[in-house]
């Protein structure tokens, strides 16, 4: 495999891994597949520009220097997720998982239409950090700076998250909640704190995906995030529902497989890349129906 391909695969896999982590975090603590995650990503993108239905976008938050912009967008994502938790998912907490899932779909549709009302249906240009696309020579490979940043940032985020989960009180509580929520509550873990924490983190991760997407593509579209949400959801299933490490590994694997298929398939088969990708997913699930890294909580008990 050429170095070029390795970087292409890692960068795409990294984006999917971060998105999958955002879904797995929430699933871990409240068994909710948050189908509104894609719209969280879209909202974080649109937060960069001033609401208007004009064809030409005027940058709002996006005009700030990166040092302020990044935390601000992460905060937007986190606050949006917290608000969604408080207004939609908290009242539904004792509802069945199916009701929760339908609730998340409804929230997604509502958010998408809110964006349509505020910004109109036309995609908008968002020129954020255009210089990051410039290629850098690494041996025989020409790697866009953004790819390197994505790969490094994904590594840093995963490391920070792993440290947080291992060494902080909220991390311990989250892991306990993911293992057995009822038992964790009996042992004094505060449900609201853990669930809010998971939502805030998930929203911030959605904002990370949003920033990478915008820097890569330069456009904001109300439908964006949907495709990433789908891949990320599949990654959480392949990784084993509720397993954070599994979601990250499967996200990376799906991104890498997608890049490799794009590079390796013959031209006639390339339009059906995703069909091959999902055939691989089915193949994996045939052998490991519970996912690659099933969490203890996902196993049925006698």
């Amino acid at each position, binding site marked *: 495999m050429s170095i*070029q*391909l390795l*970087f*292409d695969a890692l*960068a*795409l896999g990294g*984006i*999917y891994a971060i998105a999958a982590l955002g879904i797995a975090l929430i699933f871990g603590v409240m068994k909710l597949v948050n189908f509104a995650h894609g719209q969280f990503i879209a909202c974080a993108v649109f937060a960069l520009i001033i609401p208007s239905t004009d*064809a*030409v*976008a005027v940058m709002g938050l996006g005009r700030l220097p990166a040092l302020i912009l990044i935390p601000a967008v992460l905060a937007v994502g986190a606050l949006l997720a917290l608000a969604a938790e408080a207004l939609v998912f908290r009242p539904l907490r004792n509802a069945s998982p199916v009701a929760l899932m339908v609730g998340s779909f409804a929230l997604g549709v509502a958010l998408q239409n809110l964006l*349509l009302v505020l910004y*109109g*249906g*036309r*995609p*908008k*240009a*968002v*020129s954020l950090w*255009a210089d*990051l*696309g*410039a*290629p850098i020579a690494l041996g025989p490979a*020409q790697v*866009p700076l*953004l*790819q390197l940043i994505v790969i490094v940032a994904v590594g840093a985020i995963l490391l920070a998250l792993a440290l947080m989960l291992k060494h902080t009180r909220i991390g311990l509580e989250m892991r306990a909640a993911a293992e057995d929520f009822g038992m964790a509550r009996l042992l004094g873990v505060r449900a609201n704190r853990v669930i809010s924490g998971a939502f805030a983190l998930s929203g911030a991760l959605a904002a990370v995906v949003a920033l*990478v*997407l915008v820097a*890569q*593509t*330069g*456009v*904001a*579209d*109300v*439908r*964006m995030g*949907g*495709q*990433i949400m789908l891949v990320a959801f599949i990654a959480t299933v392949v990784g084993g529902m509720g397993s954070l490490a599994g979601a990250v590994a499967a996200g990376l694997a799906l991104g890498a497989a997608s*890049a490799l298929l*794009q*590079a390796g398939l013959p*031209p006639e088969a*390339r*339009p059906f*890349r*995703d069909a091959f990708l999902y055939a691989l997913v089915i193949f994996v699930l045939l052998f490991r129906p519970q996912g690659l890294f099933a969490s203890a909580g996902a196993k049925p008990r006698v």
Partner: protein
Amino acid sequence: MKLACSMLAVLALAVPVQADDITVGFAIAKSGWMEAYDTPAATAAKIRIDEINAAGGLLGNQIAVVDADTRTDRAESAKAGLDVLDQGAQMMVVSCDYDFGAPAALVAEGEGMNSFFLCAEDVKAGIQGVGPNSFSASVLAPVQGATMAEWAHAKRDARAAFVLEDTFIEYNKGICTGFEWMFPQLDGAEIVGRDTFKNDDASIASQITRIKSLEKAPDVIMLCSVMPGAAAAVRQIRAAGIDALILNGSAVDGSYWLDAVPDLSGFVLPVQGSIYGDDPRPEVEAFNKAYEAKTGARPTSQYAYPGYVLIDLWAKAVERAGTVDGASVTAELEKMQAEPTAFGPRSFSADLHHQNTALMQVIEITDGKPARVDEWQISQPVPLDVLMGK
């Protein structure tokens, strides 16, 4: 419900339809993402209707407009078609896109009425997909691809082309079909590579790697894509240091997306008329001004124009037929050969209710500024079997 009823009542009051008016029904997206594409073309259609009414009307009657919202939803599109029918429509204007317009157009077809797609560029949006009384006033996507192929070969010495197709919608496929039909026929021209991507792909790094690993860098990249994927692809291609001329279809017209690729140069597309104030035909600029007077802003892309053309052509055919009856008007429309319009001549035939060739204006973006640089009409019409993808 009560509120909805009273709103309907207000709407009905707002458009008083006289018994002897000729009624045109707009079953189009007034909400949802398609609205951004349907509204400009519908506005242009209404500008032409206003002009006709001011000049004494059609067959001595005023043209009245009724409308219904498809909400960018295929199922709602059929309902909107029925809705405008109930409101007395005698001709139906449907959504820009084939998928969203066809359900309403089929309702019109079932009544033997004429239907016009606002700007569909897929051959199915006509006889082949809807039925004998359905038309589109836009220029077929393969014509746009073929125009780019022949122009780039003649004017920019393009000999080696790379084709990058976005598999998102049929339109993209049409652009590439036209290019791949025309380009290899030209002297010394060769397609040196192909790849595909999806409009919402988070990254096209693998495709760019393929372009960069070609033995000889291509002279042109035919990018068959629409927003937002097209802007994303162009941004990534230019960021990777690939300077080849990039060609696209009319769908990316408008300067609204150019911030996505700062200081873009060497990007070319064909359009039916220039929105940038530099079209050599005074009628085009007169329309741009009329549009600005009506809406407060100039058209954001060329896709307002087909709306104006469709009413223009339909009204001429109605005058000649002396009736709005679908079959009679269709017969008159099918007689049109190089019928002059503000945006160039238009022809229909008993086989094709679309343009398989057209004089197109060539827009080039240089340093982030779009401008008309040339005009071009392909040397031979795109054959029907190519249009049908055979």
